[in-house]
C-alpha cells in the first residue's frame, strides 16, 4: 500500500518545481506552463486526499480547478498574444511598466 505521504511529497516536489519555473524563466509561455504544473500538483493532492480520506469532494474540487485552469489558459494566452502584438516580445523581464 502506498502511503498518503508519498503522494503529498510528490505533489510538493512538483509544486516547487513549478514555483521555481515561474521565478526563473524569462518566457511568458514557460511561466504559464509552470503555473499549469503547479495546478496539477495541487490536483494530485486533492485526488490523493479524496482517496485516502474517502471523500468524493476532493475529486469535485479537481473538477473546479480544471475549470479555473482552462479559463486561466484562455485569458493568459489571449493576454500573451495581445502583449506580443504590442511589444513584440514574450519576455517577462521586458514587461516592467508597473513601477514608479
Amino acid at each position: 500500500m502506498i502511503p498518503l505521504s508519498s503522494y503529498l511529497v510528490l505533489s510538493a516536489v512538483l509544486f516547487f518545481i513549478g514555483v521555481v519555473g515561474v521565478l526563473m524563466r524569462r518566457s511568458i509561455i514557460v511561466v504559464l506552463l509552470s503555473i499549469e504544473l503547479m495546478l496539477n500538483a495541487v490536483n494530485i493532492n486533492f485526488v490523493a486526499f479524496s482517496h485516502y480520506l474517502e471523500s468524493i469532494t476532493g475529486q469535485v474540487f479537481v473538477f473546479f480547478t480544471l475549470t479555473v485552469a482552462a479559463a486561466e489558459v484562455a485569458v493568459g494566452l489571449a493576454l500573451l498574444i495581445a502583449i506580443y502584438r504590442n511589444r513584440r516580445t514574450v519576455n517577462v523581464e521586458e514587461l516592467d511598466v508597473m513601477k514608479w
Partner: protein
Amino acid sequence: MMTSYVLIPLLPLFSFIVVGLFQKWMRGLAHLVCVPLVFASFGMSLLAFIDVMRGGPINFDLYEWIPVGDFRPTFGIMIDQLTASMLLLVTLVSSLVHLYTVGYMHGDKGYDRFFAYISLFTFSMLALVMSNNFLQLFFGWEMVGLCSYLLIVHWYERGPATKASLKAFIQNRVGDLGFALGIFLIWVTVGSLDYGTVFAAIGEHQGETVSLLGMDVSVITMIALLLFIGAVGKSAQFLLHSWLPDAMEGPTPISALIHAATMVTAGIFMVSRCHPIFNLSPTAMTVVALTGGFTALFGATIALTQNDIKKVVAYSTMSQLGYMVMACGLGAYTAGMFHLLTHGVFKALLFLAAGSVIHALSAEQDIRRMGQARRYMPTTYWTMLWGSLALSGIFPFAGFFSKDEILWQAFNAGLLGKGLWLLGLVVAFMTAFYTFRVFFMVFYGQDNMDKEVKHHAHESPAVITIPLVVLAVGSLLVGWLGNPLFGTNYVHRFLQPVFHSSVSHVPEEHAGSLPALTATAFAGETDESGAAHEGVPMEGAPMEGAPMEGVPMEGAPMEGAPMEGAPAGMSENAGVAAGHAMAAAPHAAGAAGEHAGGHSRGLEMLLMALSLAVAAAGIYMAYLWYYRPNPAPAQLAATYQVLYQGSLNKWYWDELYDMVFVRPTMRLAHGMWRVADEIVIDKVLVDGVAITTRIGGEILKFFQTGRVQHYAMVMSLGICVIFIGFFLL
C-alpha cells in the same frame, strides 16, 4: 423718579448712536443732536446732585449683565456724593467742550464723527462713575480708553496720531490688565463684585495672604496694588505715563475733556472709590503716595522745558494727577477729590484756551513761534491768565485751595507726608514757573509769529470763548467751596459720608452696621499708618463752632448716627470690626478735638502763605526770564546741558520703552515666527513627518521594479522566512 437718572449716561449714548448711524447724512449738523442732549444730561446731573445732597445716595440695578452661577454682575446706577460731584464735573466740562467743539472743529472732515465720539466718551465716563460694581467700572474704564484711542486718532492721516493712539491704548491696556487681575482677586477673595458687598466684607480678609514670587503678601495689599496698576495706566502715573503727552496729537477739545478733566482722573476716582480697600493696606497706600509724589515731580521737571504748548499743559496734567494720587495715598481722599474737581475745571480751561490760541494761529503749537498774542485775542488772554493763576495756586483761584489742602494733609501725615509735602512745594514752584513761562511766551515776549500766521490771527468765535469764560469764572469760584478759611468747607461736608462711611451706598436695612464699618475704615488707617490725617476732614466743623454736629452726615443712611450712635451700632456687630471701631472712635473724637485747637490753624495759615510765596516766586522767575526776551534760560540750559536735554527729551522714557519693550517684542515675534514657527514646528516637525514618509517611499520604490518575477521572488522569500520561523520556533 430715581430710575430716570439712568438717562444721564443714556442721553449721550443716544446722541452717539444717532450721529454714528446717520453720520453720512449729518453734514456738519451733528452738534444739533449732541449739544442739547449733553446739556440735558448736565441738567439731570444737577438734579441728581441736589437729590443726593438732600436724600442721600441712590443705588439701583438695571439688569444682570453676565449671570453665571454666583457670578452676577449687573449694570447699575449708583449716585452717592462722590459720584454726584464727578457727574457734575464730567457733564459740565463735557457740555462746554461740546460747545467749544462746534467752533473749534468747524469745517473739519470728521466733524460729525468727532461729535459721535465725544458723546460716546461722555456716556462711557458716566457709566464709569455711576457704576455700582467693579465690572461696570471696568466696562467704563475700558470704554473711555477706547474713546480716548478713537479721538487721539481722529486725524488718522497724521502718522504721529496713529502712533500715539496705539501707545495710549496699549499702555492703558497694561494698566487694565492689572485692574482686571485686581477684580479677579476681589472676586476670588470676597465672592462678589458689588461695591457694597465688597467694601463691607473686605475687612474680614485682613489676615489672608497670597504668595507672590515666593513671598506672602496680604491679599488686601495685593488687591489694592493691582487696582492701583489700573489707576497708574489710566491716570498716567509714573511708568505708564508716556502715552499722555503723546495723546496731545488728538484735537484740543478732547485733550481738555479726556486728557485733562475727566478720563485721566478716573484713576483717582477709582482709588477714592476703593478707599475701604486701600485704607486696610498701609503698604499699598505708601506705594500710591510715593508714585503720586514722584509723578508730580517727574511731570513738572519735563514740563519746564517743553516747547509745544499742549505738551506743557499735558505734563502739567500728569504732575497734577500725581498730586491727587499722592493725596489719595496719604488717605486724604477728600483733598484728592477736591483737587480733581478744581483741576478739572481750570485744566480744561487751560487746554481750551491753548486750543483757542492754536486755532487762532493756524494750528501753530510751538510756543517759540508765538508771542504778543494778547493783542489779537483779549478774551483768550484773560481766561488763560485766570487758568494759569489757578494752576499755579494763587489766591483766590481754585488751585490755591485744593493744592494747599493736599499740602496741608501731607504735612500732617507723618514723616513720609512731610517729605512729600516738601516735594509738593518744589513742584508747586515748578508749576508756577512753567505755567507762566508758557503764558508769557505766548502772550508777551518777542513776537515770533510767521507773517502769514499773524495775518490770520484773530480772536476765536463766541462758541469758543463762552466756554472759556464759563470755565474761567468756575476756576475762580470753585475753590471757595473747599475754602478752609472762611465759611464752610462744603466739599468736605458733602463728601464726608463717602469717605467716612465706606458703605454709604448699602441699602437702608444694613444701616445698622454702618458705624462699625466706618470705624473699621478709620481703624485700618490709624492703626497702621499712625497718621492723624483722617481727622482733618472734620476741621470744617470746628470752624463752624459746632464741635459735635460738625460731623454732619447729610447722607440719609448716616442720619442720626454720629459719634454717639457708633457704640450702639457696634454692639450689633460682633467680631473684628467692633474691636477696631472701639479703638477708632475715641481717636476720631480726639482728632476732631485736636484740630479745634488754634495752633493747627495758625500752622495751616503759615503753610498757605509759604506755598503762596513759592508759587509767586515761580511766577516772578518766569516773568524775569520770559516777559521780555532774556538770554538767562538759554545760558542756564547750556550750563546744565545734561539736565536740560534730559528734561527736554522726557528723561528718555520713550526711548527706554522702545529699547526694552517695543523693539525686543517685535524682534522676538519676528524671530520666533521665522525660526520657531516656520522652521522648527512647521517645516521640521510637521512637514518633517511628511518628508520622512516621502523619503521612505523614495527608497522603497526601487523595490518596485515592475517585474512580476521580482515580486514573486520577494513573496517566496517571505514564505521562506515564515517557514524558517515556523520550524525554528
